Every structure is written in structure tokens, then in C-alpha cells.
């Protein structure tokens, strides 16, 4: 029997950093359709649908979402107004479609900003260690002492209401979970041989963080972000329900339910349908998150959802 020829240099090469760029993920996502990852498949289909609705909102709305006509108020769901009309005679369906833009974009902004800030802080903290690490981690400890909603409420009293302030308020707490994850990964990677090699060939700290750490942390961060979107949608909705989000007349799902609360005896559809929209999008992104996690890290199945 012939032995398989062994390359002389094989065992000597440094393990290469796994480069996990976006195109590779796209490829993996496509392959998931063949596998039995139902959550991911459904998640992708529905998420695409919801995002398309938000993008093409002006084309899809049957009526002008902000046009008031008191002659048409409180019309129950019917053929002309599928989801009925509200106390100002505005079409609820049109408002839900228009509201998807604000509600989804605030949620995405929160996730993107907190992921970027958290990853950066975590990497710096884990890489440098020592005092920098201690200071950052104490800040994280203090912020985690507040339930997200409470801290966001406190921040909102300072900044005032509005969609942008809502994003800032939620980001103030949310970045901490990304920071913890990327710090943990950075500490694990810090002593890897290829990082030593990278140092030896003269990379500076910044280069090491962005060229060698980041590609290895990305997949963990992506999992966390995709699991996070669903709950962020709910946080945004809760805060705008409390009147801290986008201000009237711009339609926002949480605020629509808050308006509907006043009329739930006579016009329950005013609160029911925007709630369904929130639930459907949160469910979609939760399925997507579960699917992405199963795909990228099967060991993390059903593990703790971060706050």
C-alpha cells in the first residue's frame, strides 16, 4: 500500500486566521436552503418581505397615512379599509406600512451602533487588559445594573423624546453585551500563535485588532446581533408606546398602540393590528436569529439570550 505523501512543511505552517468575510456567509446562507434549517429559510423569506415593504412603503400604501378625515373615523375593518380607520379617520393599514420604516430603521440602527461600539470596546479591553480592561468592565457592570427600559427612560428624560434619542438611549445599554462577547473572544485569541507571529512580523496593535481579531470575532457578533434584533424591535416598540419614540404625526407602531389604547372599547382594531405588525417582525427576526445561530454555531443552540 502506498502511503499518502506528506508535505514536509505541513505541520510547520502557522494556522491561518479564519477570514470570515460577508461573501462567504452569503454562500453559506444559500446552502442552508438545501439543509433542514427551516427557521433560517422562513426567517430569510419573511425578513426580505418585511424589508421590501418598508422600502416600497409609499407605493404600497392604499391611502395617505397622515391624511385626516374625521368623516371616516372609527370605520371597522372592511373591504375599503382592511384594518379599519383610526380616531382621525386615517387608514390603519397605510399607517402600519409607513410605520414599518421608522420602527425597523430604529431597531437596525440600535443593533448596528451597539454592535460596532461594543465590539470595538471589547476588543480594546481584551487586547490591552490591565487598567483599560478594568475601567471598561466596571462601566459595563454599572450599566448592567439597570434594566434596559429603566435606563432608556432615564436617558430620555435628559435627551427628550424622538426617534434618534430613542436609538441613543437603547444603545447606551445594549453595547455592553457585544463588548462582553468580543472581550472574551479577544482574550482567548490574544495568546494564539498566529497573533504572536503577527506581532513578530511588525504589525502594530491597531493592525492586529482589525486584521487578525476582527475576522475571528465577526461570526460571534453576527450571531449575537441576529438574536438581538427581535428583542430590540420590542424595546423600541415599548419605549415608543410610552411616548418616547417618534413624535406624531409620523406613524410608529408602538405609538399607534398607545393611541389605540384610549379607544379599545370601541375600536379595538386600532391597537390590535399594529401589535400584530410588531409581533410578526419580532418573530421573523427571532427565527432568523435562531437560524443564523444554528448555522454558524451549533453548540450555542438555545443558549442564553442576552438582554
Amino acid at each position, binding site marked *: 500500500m502506498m502511503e499518502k505523501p506528506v508535505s514536509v512543511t505541513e505541520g510547520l505552517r502557522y494556522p491561518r486566521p479564519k477570514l470570515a468575510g460577508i461573501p462567504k456567509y452569503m454562500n453559506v446562507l444559500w446552502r442552508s436552503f438545501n439543509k433542514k434549517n427551516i427557521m433560517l429559510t422562513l426567517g430569510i423569506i419573511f425578513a426580505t418581505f418585511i424589508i421590501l415593504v418598508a422600502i416600497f412603503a409609499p407605493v404600497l400604501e392604499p391611502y395617505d397615512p397622515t391624511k385626516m378625515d374625521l368623516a371616516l373615523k372609527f370605520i371597522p375593518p372592511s373591504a375599503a379599509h382592511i384594518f379599519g380607520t383610526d380616531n382621525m379617520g386615517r387608514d390603519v393599514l397605510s399607517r402600519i406600512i409607513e410605520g414599518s420604516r421608522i420602527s425597523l430603521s430604529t431597531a437596525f440602527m440600535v443593533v448596528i451602533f451597539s454592535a460596532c461600539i461594543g465590539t470595538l470596546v471589547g476588543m480594546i479591553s481584551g487586547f490591552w487588559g490591565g487598567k483599560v480592561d478594568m475601567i471598561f468592565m466596571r462601566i459595563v*457592570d454599572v450599566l448592567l445594573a439597570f*434594566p434596559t427600559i429603566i435606563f432608556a*427612560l432615564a436617558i430620555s428624560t435628559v435627551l427628550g423624546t424622538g426617534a434618534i434619542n430613542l436609538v441613543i438611549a437603547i444603545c447606551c445599554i445594549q453595547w455592553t453585551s457585544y463588548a462582553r462577547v468580543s472581550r472574551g473572544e479577544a482574550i482567548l485569541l490574544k495568546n494564539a500563535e498566529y497573533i504572536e507571529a503577527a506581532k513578530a512580523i511588525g504589525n502594530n496593535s491597531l493592525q492586529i485588532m482589525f486584521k487578525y481579531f476582527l475576522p475571528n470575532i465577526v461570526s460571534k457578533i453576527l450571531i449575537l446581533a441576529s438574536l438581538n434584533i427581535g428583542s430590540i424591535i420590542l424595546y423600541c416598540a415599548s419605549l415608543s408606546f410610552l411616548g418616547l419614540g417618534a413624535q406624531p404625526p409620523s406613524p410608529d407602531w408602538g405609538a399607534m398602540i398607545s393611541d389605540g*389604547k384610549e379607544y379599545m372599547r370601541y375600536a379595538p382594531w386600532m391597537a*390590535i393590528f399594529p401589535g400584530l405588525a410588531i409581533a410578526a417582525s*419580532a*418573530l421573523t427576526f427571532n427565527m432568523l436569529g435562531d437560524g443564523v445561530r444554528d448555522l454558524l454555531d451549533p453548540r450555542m443552540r*438555545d443558549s442564553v439570550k442576552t438582554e
Partner: protein
Amino acid sequence: MIKYIIKRMIIVFFVLWMVATLTFFTVHVTPGDTANAIIVSVYGEDAVSPETLENVRTKFDLKRPVFVQYTDWLKNVVTGELGTSYKYNKPVIDILKIRLPNTLILGFSAFLISIVISIPFGIISALNHNRPIDHFSRFSTLLLSSFPSFWIALLLIIIFSIQLKVLPVSGMAGFSSIILPAVTLSIGMTAATTRMLRSSMLDVLGQDYITVARAKGLEDNQVIFGHALRNAIPPIITVIGLQIGHIIGGAVIIENIFAWPGIGGLLIDSINTKDLPMIEGCVLIIAFGYAIVNLIVDITYSCIDPRIKYSGGDN
């Protein structure tokens, strides 16, 4: 073990101090004049004039430098003196003392409901892995964790209070009035705990010592409750700790909807009326409570998990 607890206590004290500091500066750097805010919250927009502003500044000692105000405030917090509410014109601590038990009752009921539901469901789901009941439980927990709690609250009000007229819409009068708020508040935690217990049980049931326990002829009940469940509990405690934070945050919204006279409703009211000492009091008491709950969770965890017990919690 003792070393670990002491270490945790020191961190908690530090966190509490920072929380107090952060709360003070967050509320006191509010854009706009504090005196102006007081007048608006007590007498309304029209009462603002140079004289009233001057009077309020003298009355509430707002002329002192911020740092002096901070140190005085910190001393007062330590002694439990949280200032006087602008709106109620009573000591904040007195109002909090009346409101806090209501929130505790609500939170504790929600906690009990979710434990009572999630533990059996988690176990059943894990024991029937990939059978219909497991799929049902997975799907329903995913569904429930996607519903906004305030929307479920409204649906329950529409069904049980408006249509069926069996439960009161809001307020706090007798046992029937706690059902809807407590059930709504428990949903998020129930879903999360069920999911976690299911996967944790599945992990444990695949371990060798479970096979050994079965092989030496133990009955199913002994294997499940004596061996599997005990080992599946630690991750559950972490989830419960996190979920208590959700319950506290959720209480703010739920109390607001059901007009439940607790801390959460008070917080929203004070934010709307810009009642600064009241906001500070509410945020402080919530953050303190949460920090203490987390401390208890960590200590419980360390009692259960020997790895922490012996390492002194360095990891």
C-alpha cells in the same frame, strides 16, 4: 466561597455608588433649568417668571454648585433621605414606601407563575425531544417571546375585561385585579426559562452519568429529578436572574397600562411631570433592587456550582 461572596459584595457596593452617581448626573444635567422644570411640573407653564424662578431656586437650594449638591445628595441617599417630591410635596421615600410593596407583589406573582409553568414544560419538552409536544412548546415559546407585552396586556383587557367582563380593567382591588397584570408580566420569563430548561435538560440527558444511572437500574423519576434536573439547574438560575431584570423593566409598562399603583407607574408619571427627586428615587430603588437580585443570583449560583465555589470566582 466566603472570599467569593465578599468579592461580589464589594463589586455590588461599587456598582450601587456608581448607579447613584450616574442617576444624579443624568437627571441633573437635564437640558433646561431645573427651577424652570419644577415650576412647570407644579404650577404649569404660565407660572414661569423671574420672581418665581428666584423663589424656587432659593427654596430648593439650587444655587449651590453641582458638586456640592452631589455630595450632599449622596450623603442623603446613604441615610435614606431622597428629597421632597415636587409634585406631591411629600418626602420621596414615604411615597416609595407605599408604592414598593405593590410592585413587589406584582413582580413576585409573575415570577411564581412563570416558574410554575416553565419548569414542567421545559422538562416535558426535553423528555419528548422532537415529538409533537416538543415542537409545540418550542414554537409557542418562540411566539410568546416575540409578542410585545403591552400589546398582550391590551388583548387580555379586550377579551377578559371588556368582552367577557370577568376581570377588572385596571386598578388594585382584591385578588382578581392582579391576575391580568401578573400573567402578562410573566410571559417573557416563562418563554425564556422554558427554552433554557429544555436545552439544558437535553444537554444533561446526553451525558454519560445519566446512562450510568439508568444502567444501574434507577427508575425514570429518580434519574430525571435526582440526576438530570439537578445538573440542569445552574444555567436556569442565570436566565432567571436576567429575566428578573425584564420583569422589573416590564413592570414599568404593565403598571402603566393596568393603573397598578407601583413604582413603575410612578416613574412614568414623574417623567411626564419632570418631578426630578421622584425620578431619581424610582431609578435608584429599581437599580438597587436589581443589583441585589443579581448578587443573590450569583451567590446561589456559587453555592450550586462547585467550580465557582472552589476557584473563588476568578473566572
